[in-house]
């Protein structure tokens, strides 16, 4: 009803305007006014508006600069951030000059040379010297900008120094997880097929492979059993679906078995050099800490869709792309505590956020980053490594039909969500009775 009313009001409003225009039109016809004849008054009015607009435009710009200048990102908290901020300032200096110059000319000319029937425009079709001038001057300026910009870019994207610590940032809808390399200092290999509640990043270890194999075998057995017992009562579509599921999981099982073989061969060949040999002590955690003034290489991965790891205060950003690992090398230079002083807010935190549209909760996919002294970081890291994780318990439960899962698994990925003691048994139950 309200909608109808609104529509009625709108229609009446339009009708009223139509009548008004009709009146205007008739009076215009009576006065013999033609739309294409722009009166001197109109020309001058618009000319003055041009000047007025230019003043307001610049005033608006300056107001924004003064009112919001200090609300922009504070000083860069990373080494390369200082470089890019300088580069940005140099660019702004050039652009501001061009901005004010061209706009002043544009609006000045637009207002100054307004129509005058006694004057004739200056017939000026070209001037090669002038045109050469404003081709060459921008070209030279741009070459400067390009060289300066690329110098910085090359420095930022250069290979990380030997021995740079790696930290993995792992994105999924809609949160971040960090992975630290553990005692060996090397991030272990991963495979997305190994992902489950206790191994959210799919870290490859002997145990995680066995667990996954067991899980798959259990699920396959359960489905086959279900088909055997209830197959004739189920609708055909459901039967097809279940058969497909079995096929899919069998293919997955073969892939994981392949992975297992590959891992064993690789470790046999390369020993400690094999990337498969390093997953066991990795620390998987939903906290993100970095030591100040230490080079770090962020290894960025995604589980599902494209995300982007963006840490605005460190001027760092790199996409997280499923199927590949991207890297961003940086060196944080300001600790969280110091930054709190800089911005005058004792609750301030650096934040890692997602900057590539990734779904409904894209707008709140964040994780605080703590930059701290090496000592503080070491203390946190030692704690993080010690944190008992529930993975072994969860890994052991679905064992019945499969190869015996390692009961002594001292190390798989630690998921802090799973360390929540209430969550782990729940997850285990869910695995024991596959419901999907």
């Amino acid at each position, binding site marked *: 009803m309200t*909608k109808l009313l609104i529509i009625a009001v709108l229609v009446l409003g339009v009708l009223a305007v139509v009548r008004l225009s009709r009146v205007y039109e008739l009076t215009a016809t009576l006065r013999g006014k033609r739309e294409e004849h722009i009166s001197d008054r109109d020309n001058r009015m618009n000319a003055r508006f041009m000047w007025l607009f230019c003043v307001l435009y610049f005033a608006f710009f300056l107001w924004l600069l003064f009112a919001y200048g200090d609300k922009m990102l504070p000083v860069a908290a990373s080494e390369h951030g200082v470089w890019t901020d300088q580069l940005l300032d140099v660019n702004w200096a050039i652009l501001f000059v061009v901005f004010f110059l061209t706009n002043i000319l544009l609006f000045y000319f637009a207002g100054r040379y307004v129509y005058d029937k006694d004057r004739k425009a200056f017939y000026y079709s070209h001037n090669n010297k002038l045109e050469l001038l404003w081709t060459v001057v921008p070209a030279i300026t741009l070459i400067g900008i*390009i060289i300066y910009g690329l110098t910085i870019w090359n420095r930022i994207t250069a290979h990380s120094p030997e021995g740079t610590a790696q930290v993995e940032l792992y994105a999924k809808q809609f949160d971040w997880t960090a992975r630290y390399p553990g005692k060996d200092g090397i991030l272990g290999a991963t495979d997305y097929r190994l992902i489950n509640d206790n191994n959210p990043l799919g870290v490859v270890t002997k145990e995680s492979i066995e667990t996954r194999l067991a899980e798959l075998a259990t699920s396959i057995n359960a489905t086959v059993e279900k088909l055997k017992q209830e197959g004739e009562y189920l609708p055909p579509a459901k039967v097809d679906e279940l058969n497909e599921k079995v096929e899919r999981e069998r293919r997955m099982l073969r892939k994981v078995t392949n992975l297992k073989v590959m891992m064993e061969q690789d470790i046999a060949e390369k020993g400690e050099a094999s990337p498969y040999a390093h997953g066991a002590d990795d620390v998987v955690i939903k906290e993100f800490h970095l030591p100040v003034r230490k080079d770090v290489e962020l290894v960025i991965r995604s589980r599902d869709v494209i995300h982007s790891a963006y840490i605005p205060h460190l001027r760092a950003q790199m996409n997280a*792309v499923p199927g590949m690992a991207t890297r961003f090398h940086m060196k944080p230079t300001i600790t969280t505590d110091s930054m709190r002083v800089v911005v005058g807010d004792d609750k301030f935190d650096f*934040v890692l956020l997602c900057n590539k549209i990734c779904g409904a909760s894209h707008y709140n996919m964040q994780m605080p980053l703590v930059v701290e002294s090496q000592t503080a970081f070491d203390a946190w890291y030692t704690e993080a490594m010690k944190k008992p994780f529930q993975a072994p318990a969860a890994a052991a439960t679905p064992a019945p039909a499969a190869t015996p899962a390692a009961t002594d698994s001292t190390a798989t990925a630690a998921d802090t969500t799973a360390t929540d003691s209430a969550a782990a048994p729940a997850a285990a139950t869910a695995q024991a009775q596959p419901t999907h």
Partner: protein
Amino acid sequence: MGAHAHDTHAAHHDAHAAHHHHQESWVSKYIFSQDHKMISKQFLVTAIIMAWVAVIMSILFRLQLAWPGEGFAFTNFFLGDKWAPGGVLNSNMYLALVTIHGTIMVFFVLTGGLSGTFSNLLIPLQVGARDMASGFLNMLSYWFFFLSSILMLASLFVEGGPASSGWTVYPPLSALPEAIPGSGTGMTLWLLSMAIFIASALLGGLNYVVTILNLRTKGMKMTRMPLTIWAFFITAVLGILSFPVLLSCALLLLLDRSLGTSFYLSDIHIGGEALEQTGGSPILFQHLFWFLGHPEVYIVLLPALGITSEVIATNARKPIFGYRAMIGSILAIGFLSFIVWGHHMYLTGMNPFLGSVFVFTTLLIAIPSAVKVFNYLTTLWRGNIVMTPAMLFSIGLVATFIAGGLTGIILADSALDINVHDTYFVVAHFHIVMGMSAIFGMFAGIYHWFPKMYGRMMNTKLGYAHFWITFVCAFGVFFPMHFVGLAGAPRRYYDYSEFPFLNGVTDLNVLITVFAIIGGAAQMIFTYNFFYSIYRGQKAVQNPWRSNTLEWTTPVEHIHGNWPGPIPTVHRWPYDYSKPGKAEDFVPQTVPLEHGEDEEHG
């Protein structure tokens, strides 16, 4: 094209004239018309309707951004209880609105609407042709456009909502319905709609190119063509070369979505399950998409620049400064636009060296763009400027082109892009340089050629009101966005209140929304003026703006074949305004050179 070709063409038309006055049925005149003038009007009206859909969408999501979580009857009125319970926009619907707003504006309004309207209207009229090379293909081009518009609008009503992975529809988000509801039927319809749209763009583009190359009247050398035609020509070439790539890009995505191929998908674990697709790369999609996507920016922009060149010269009563340089810069922009697509992808993990190459090519585009701006400024200098609404919008375009072009220099610099990529800074940049410039060019074209399209005049006073409100609001909306972006606010966020460090700029979001609402409402003035003037506007005279180009030598009443007699012959370039020694301040192209008169060229 040689004189011979022209003769046969003229002969054909003399024969044609004999059976000119056959009766056309209502359907063949207004619906399945093959007349370029009617087709151009069809494109324009469809685009205006689509633009309204996109504008209302933008108001809906701007309301949410300014006052997150508050209910609005306006929102509920349009989206109902499913997508806006209590008038609070749903976060999935927010992304859908952002996506469809972008898609409609970029493709349906600024590509179909702008090129479709003005290339169709002006190419035959300004080069001196009876019609497009193929009227039938031209008609198909419109009806494909219409069909794709209907499909796009239909996608708004499907379960799960329309496509919601951003107008760039990056997979895997756009490929997996598990990732976002809009990637179900809505996305399928989006892809189908775009495939049909591409067919439309290609049919149109081929026609434009062939018409310009083959059907120019006697004396219409390439170097005597108005800059509008040059712009439409290069635009059409860009479209022909790049749209097929988008088509293949969309088809591969369809395959990934429906047949389980893995062009773009690899190692994905979603909805508790590991997908079987491996070996593909989402980055491949981005390369293919932006291979169209970047030329697309110029497909949108060049026609607007062409229109502006024509309108500025006419209303400054002065030749366009540096005619050849203007053509050169169009060619340079057109060429460079094909080798800069990677600047959208600096942070995808693309090889940094490749990034450097794209930095270089991208920044080069600033040179021809600067030439254009300085040439516009010099054209205004010592002109005799008539402030028609079309002229105001053209001056407005130069202003937005400057403001938006300059920030492009920041974004092109890969090192700087690290921090501003995908923030509101980007939103500000492309809305000003592409969105506003192109829409201002479109408005300039509509006000300028309305008499040619409908034989009537639009109301000038309403035109002034429309321009000034729109112009102020355009900067009111998009200028503060630079600051929001530099404060670190990512784009496509449903709500910024989760991030304390952005609190300083939240009131800017309110300011932006207020300007957006006023600016959106101001378009009612235009819409009213447009439709009212079609029926009740003052009857137009043949050459209201005292312009030089050929379209103003045709009669006000549309006739099939454009000129009642033979096609006029062209004797000079189109910019002889205020030429010394002439009584009038304009000399139409059809006036022969006087004895000893130089044909001056830029």
